[in-house]
Structures are given as C-alpha cells and as structure tokens.
C-alpha cells in the first residue's frame, strides 16, 4: 500500500503600507494601503482569489465529488481567514464546502503565521489557541496534526506538540537529517515517544510548486500521467508520499496558462489508476503507519531555499533588529490588555514582514529571487520599524494612562485614610473647633492634585 498525503498551505499577510516617520503618532492604521498595488491587501486578496482560490477550489470540489478516495489537507493562517471574511467571503464558503466533505483535514498552525515559537513560547501558545478557536468557529473541526510557519521545525517544537496532544507534526524531509533514509516513511522526533513526523518529499513537491511551468526544466511539460508514475515508483520503498506546497502554487505561482489546473484535475485519477495506491489525510496517515526510525533536528529546519533554515527571515542585521524589537515589546503590549493593540502587534509578527527585508541574494544581483511588494529590503524595514515605533508609542501611552489612574486612585485612598485618621484623632484628642479646618486643608490639597490629573477620577472622589 502506498498513500499520497497532499497538503496545501493558504496564507496572506497583512502587508504594512508605506508608513513614514511623519505618520508616527498620527496614523494608527498600518495595513490599509488602498493604492491598488502589491501593498494593498484587499487588492491582493481579490487578485489571488480570481487567479487561484476560486478556480482551484472549483477543481478540488469536482475531484472530491468524482473520486471518493481523494483526500488532502489544508492549513490556513488566521490572517488569511480574516481577510477572506472581509474581502472575499465566497472564497471562505468554498473552503467550508471542501472541509464539509469530511475528506479535507485542517492542520494546526499559528494564527499570525509567526516565528513566535523561537522567540516566545507563551506567545506561540496563545497564537495556536487563537488559531484553534478560529478553525473551530469557521469549520467546526479541531486540528490534530501541527505544521509551523514556513514548515519551521526543531526537536523541541515536536516535543511541545506531543505534550499538547497532537498526533503528528510536519517537517521538511531534508537530506542533512535523513541521510540515506527515505522521506516516504513516518519518523519519531528525537526526544518524543508518541508523536510522529510527516516529512515533505521535496523532490516531488517542488516539481509541482516550483518547476512545473519552467520551460528550461528537462521534464517540462509535466503531465499528470508522468508525475503519477514518479509517485508509483515509490511502491516498495515507502508508505506515504507527502506533497507539501503553498496552495497559491495553483494559479498564482504557476499561472493558469502553464496548464496547472488541467494537471490538478487529472492527477487523482492517474494516481488511483495504480492498484494499491490511494490518498490519506495527515491524521489517517499517522494512524495507519508505524515509525521507521528517529528524526533528529537540533537546529531550525524550514522549507525555504537551498539552506533550509531561517536565514531568509533572520539572516541579516535589520531582520534580526526588527524581530527582536517586536518580541521585546511582548510584556508591555500584553500588559495593556487592549485587544486592538495586541492584535496589531501580532499582525506585525507575521513572518512575511521579515522576509521582505532579506538581502541574502541581493549581492549577486539576483533581486528577483525573493518576492517582495517593497522596492528594496530597506524600504520594507523602514515601513515596518516606523509602524512598530507608532505601536510602541501607543502602548506606552496606555501604560502611562494606567499608571496615572493607579496613582490617582492611590492618592484618593490615601486621602480618605488621612480623613479617617483625622476624624479618629478628632474624636479622641483634637478639639471640635480645629476639626473642620484640618479636614478642609487636607481636602483642598488633595483636590488640587486630582484636578491636575484625570477628570474621571474626580467623579470617583465625589462618590467616595
């Protein structure tokens, strides 16, 4: 038996508009570019919906209707779901229809497509919980297999997933850690006892996601028939072929004119033609097979570039500066208990912001190797840091207001105590004629202080 476990990742960030130094303190909207360019989030979602989400979901629905054996997995960032709700509710409905068939599994994820695990585990946990609630609300299901932003993975992340009840976790099937072994088996993450790791078959996955439309590629044009035969070739040396890719590979990264939709439409039939070959969701895969060995990943592994690490996000000084500045705010932001501020801060954690600041290959002049809506990594950094500076300002304003309120409250309490003390004293030692005068002077001084503070507190005093 050989099964195929496809997983498509759906994500859009909230891109930061061209936010200038002059906007700090004057503009609290960072994500509302309306220019109809690649910084305009609504524009992008509508564009990608037309090119990718709508036509692809139509094909996927047809395939589910036609082939009862067909199954796959989806993962969504919370930021893309929010944008669907706001800009393209019909796209969200079409995803809900897919999931309602019961043959489409949704994976666990961070809500904000962040690298929080590597910077703050408590924040990471909050985002995973938030994501779980969102998925429950929109799709009525609870994810049981975890995938992290950019497929980033490390032994301790697997351990966290095991401790938190997940059955499986996804990772890149990278030669450095696999050695001679095949990615087409399940493995046990080092340091774990129960959880199983599903490894991406990067060769076959990238044939579709990256190479499909490349006319220079020796296998171009790739037919579903040929691709299915490559899958079938793993009969006997594997149990599960894990095809992990961006959902937007269909129609957005590979345009319709490459024939990608015809390929997708034909693939399940070609795969199923071979006896003993079928599809499984991630949970079904994890439940069906035992582990073949241990997968030991002490350093961060991702699905990016030839380096398969985080250097595309935190490889240079400005990237590390920006991400450190973001996570350094955690305590202050959380202390505000302001939903809007916390949510904005989290939107700034989305990994894409740091990716846009990548200079990794710019020294070779290969600036197009990285997609970015900004004209340069430095423009991305400036817009981001200015927005973050504004957020810091708002956070410290809230903190200052709170502090002022607290100290005003304390002043009231003190004053009341003084009055009580004075009254008590009056009862005992102070003569009746002195009493009103003393109380009056204490009151006058206190009221004067309050007037300089917040007017709301005055009413509190009157009540008191």
């Amino acid at each position, binding site marked *: 038996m050989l099964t195929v476990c496809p997983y498509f990742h759906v994500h859009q960030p909230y891109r930061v508009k061209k936010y*200038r*130094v*002059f906007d700090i303190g004057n503009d609290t909207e960072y994500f509302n570019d309306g220019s109809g360019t690649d910084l305009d989030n609504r524009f992008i979602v509508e564009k990608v919906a037309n090119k990718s989400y709508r036509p692809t979901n139509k094909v996927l629905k047809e395939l589910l209707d036609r082939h009862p054996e067909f199954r796959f997995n989806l993962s969504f960032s919370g930021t893309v779901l929010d944008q669907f709700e706001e800009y393209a509710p019909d796209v969200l409905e079409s995803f809900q229809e897919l999931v309602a068939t019961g043959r489409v599994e949704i994976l666990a994820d961070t809500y904000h497509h962040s690298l929080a695990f590597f910077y703050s585990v408590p924040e990471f946990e909050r985002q995973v919980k938030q994501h779980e609630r969102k998925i429950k609300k929109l799709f009525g299901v609870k994810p049981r297999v975890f995938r992290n932003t950019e497929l980033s993975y490390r032994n301790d992340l697997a351990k966290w997933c095991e401790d938190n009840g997940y059955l499986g976790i996804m990772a890149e099937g990278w030669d450095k850690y696999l050695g001679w072994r095949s990615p087409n088996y399940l493995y046990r993450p080092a340091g774990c006892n129960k959880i199983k790791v599903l490894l991406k078959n990067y060769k076959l996955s990238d044939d579709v996601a990256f190479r499909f439309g490349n006319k220079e590629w020796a296998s171009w044009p790739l037919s579903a028939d040929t691709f299915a035969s490559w899958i079938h070739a793993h009969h006997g040396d594997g149990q599960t072929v894990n095809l992990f890719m961006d959902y937007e590979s269909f129609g957005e990264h590979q345009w319709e004119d490459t024939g990608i939709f015809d390929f997708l439409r034909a693939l399940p039939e070609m795969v199923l033609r071979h006896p003993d070959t079928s599809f499984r969701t991630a949970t079904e895969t994890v439940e069906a097979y035992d582990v073949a060995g241990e997968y030991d990943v002490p350093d961060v592994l991702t699905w990016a570039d030839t380096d398969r690490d985080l250097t595309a996000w935190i490889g*240079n*000084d*400005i990237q590390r*500066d920006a991400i450190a500045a973001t996570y350094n705010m955690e305590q202050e932001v959380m202390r505000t208990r302001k939903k809007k501020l916390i949510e904005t801060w989290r939107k700034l954690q989305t990994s894409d912001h740091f990716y846009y600041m990548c*200079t990794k290959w*710019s*020294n070779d*002049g290969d*600036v197009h190797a990285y997609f970015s809506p900004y*004209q*340069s990594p*430095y*423009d991305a*950094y*400036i817009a981001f*840091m*200015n927005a973050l*500076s504004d957020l810091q300002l708002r956070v410290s304003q809230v903190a200052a207001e709170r502090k002022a309120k607290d100290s005003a409250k304390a002043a009231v309490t003190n004053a009341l105590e003084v009055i009580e003390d004075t009254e008590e004293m009056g009862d005992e030692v102070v003569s009746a004629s002195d009493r009103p005068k003393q109380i009056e002077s204490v009151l006058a001084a206190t009221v004067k202080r309050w007037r300089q503070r917040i007017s709301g507190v005055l009413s509190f005093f009157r009540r008191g």
Partner: protein
Amino acid sequence: MRVLTFGWEFPPAQSGGLGFACQGLTQELLQSGVEVIFVLPKTQDSPYGNARFVFADQERLLRVRHADLGPIPYQQANSTIDVIVGYDESGKPIIKSRTIIEEAHRFAHQASIIAREEEFDVIHAHDWTSYLAGVAAKLATGKPLVLHVHATSFDQAASNNVDPAIFKIEREAFAMADKVVTVSGYTKNIIVKKHEVPAAKVEVVHNGCHPEDLPRQAPALAELKKQGKKVVLYVGRITIQKGVDHFVRAARRVVDNDPNVMFVICGSGDMTHQIIELVGSLGLSKNFIFTGALWFDDRDRLMQSVDLVVMPSVSEPFGLVPFEALQNGTPSIISKQSGAAEVLSHALKVDFWDTEEMANQILSSLRYPVMRQQLVKEGKWQMFNMTWRHAAEKVKRVYQSLLQYVTT
C-alpha cells in the same frame, strides 16, 4: 591587441570622475594584455599607470602648447579656457582664450595626425570633448571606433537648455561610432531616446570602484556631535544637475520633525548663491553648514564624521559619491536617476523630486542605526564584486566583437 585611446584628463593632474574612470579602466586593460596608447590634449607630468602616453600638444603642434583644463570638463561648449598658444622672445607664455569646443576641434585635428603615425587595432574615445578626436582618427585610418559615454549634455543641463553644439557633436559622433559604451543603463536609455542611437549598438559597462577602506582621519564636527546632533552631508558640485535644491527642501521637512539634524554642503558651483538663499528663505540657516569644495583627506575626514550622505542628483550617469562614502564607512541615500542605483543594492533610493520620501529616508536612517550599519557592511561586500577588472573584461569583449573579422 592595441587600442588608441583619446581622453581629456588623467590623474594625478587635477581631475574629476572622468580622469579616475579612464585610469581605472586603462590599468585593468593593460593587466588583461591590451596595449593602450593614451592620447591627452596637453602635456602633463607622469600620469599614473603604465600606458604609453601621447600628448597632442607636442612636436606636431605649431602653436598651441598648453590648455589649462580645470577639473570640470562638462561646461557649456562656448565656455572658455585659457590656452598657451606660444612663447614670446623672453620665453613668457602667450595666453589666449579659447572655447572648449575650439579646443575639442584642435584635439581632433591632432588626432588624425597621431592616428596615421601610430599602429593600432581599435579607437576608443572618452566623453564628448574626445569624440571628435575619435571620429577624426577613424576617418584617417578606417579603424573601428568605440565611444565611451561618461555623461551627456542632458545630464549637465538636467534636461533644460541642453547645449545644442555639444548635442550635435554627441549625435553625429554616435552615428559614426561602431559601438557606444555607456556607464549605466540609465545613460544608455538617454542616448537611445534623445540621440536616437539604436539600442543594439549600445553596450552598458558599469564603472568599477575601489572597495578598500580609506585611512581613518581625525574626527571632525566634534562640537556638533557633543551636542547630540545628527549630521547629513551633500558632497559634489552645486549645479542644477546635482539636485541640491531638492536636498534643501527635504531638509526643511526633516528639521520640522527633528530640529537636531544638521546638514553640511561640501562643494561649489554656479548655484551656490541660489542655494544659500534658499536655505535662508526656508529658515534653515541654523541647520546648514557650507564648507566649500574639499578634496582628498579633508573630504574623507568629513565623510567619515557624518551619519549619512545624500546624492540627490537630477541626472547622474554613474555617481561615485555613494561608493566613496562606503569607503569612508558612511551609508548613502541616492537618487533613482543615477547609474549607481542600478548596481548598488545597499543604499536607500529615492526619486530626486520626492522630497517627502527623501526626508522620510533621512529621518528613518537616523532613527535606526542598525540599518545604517548594515548598509555599510553589505555595501562594502558588494563593492568587492564591482571592480575595474570586470569593466575591463567587458570593454575587451567589445573590442573583440569589432575585430572578429579582422585578420592580422
């Protein structure tokens, strides 16, 4: 392979960017086995490098002995220079004024004589003052001609009032050339559009640069730094081409936001008074310092002491300033209307007219020191891939393409 090259200036004689570019290219061509005969219009003491130098004012020349060429070769065609036309009985030089265009014609006349005397395979002429010489040499010998464009009449005039006499020389010479080399895609675009040179005839060869750090000078502006001021520098000629007025307008916006920023203007030119007046009328006198033109160690010292350099050029065929700044450990903001913007990834880039964005970039650079450090660090790495050797290899391929049917 032997090349007869015509240029206007060569270090160490007082020299602008053109002379240094000719030197960098010539040295690497020699390294790669190309023989270079470098013809200059006037005699000068031991030019740097191992090329064979020929001076067009010697021997063959009847009257003209010496042209007093300043460091600015791109003046208007009718601006005058002093020329020694001969000597009186007591040996005192007889000085007359000539226009640059007359001087360029004289150079061409000499070039045709020199070309007949020398043996070579290709002719290479740098910038408009040498184009006529290159064309004359071609007419005299029939050898293929390469014209090298370091600047055009359009850059100089920032697109207004282009000197018609220079434009005519450029246009006619480009038509006569077998190949035209430009120092940037930006300049290629100009000559394809304005001079109507077929794009296929134009090859872009970006200038090289010198990546090594310059020696550290004693810190300058210590008093300002002590007061916690941030300092932003403009360095270059003060002319319409250089966009200094846009820089001053951006400064107004910067100071509105942060009065602690100081601006230094280092250079001189025909717009100096206008710029001083503009600074005054915008109420920025307290925030501006004019140093006049500085060279060598003084200039390096200034560049090393400031936080940021701005090159706001309206039209800049290449632009050495950001590279010089990197050698001095300082990052730059450069205009998108420059050749440097094509090759240097590690600078902030802005349209010269977008003073709002220029101000944003200045303030952001000053706010975020990590970005300034990275611009310098990665900019220096990038400069190591931008050597004159690469440029010379490309130029050599241009020569070879012209000689492929020539059998010797």
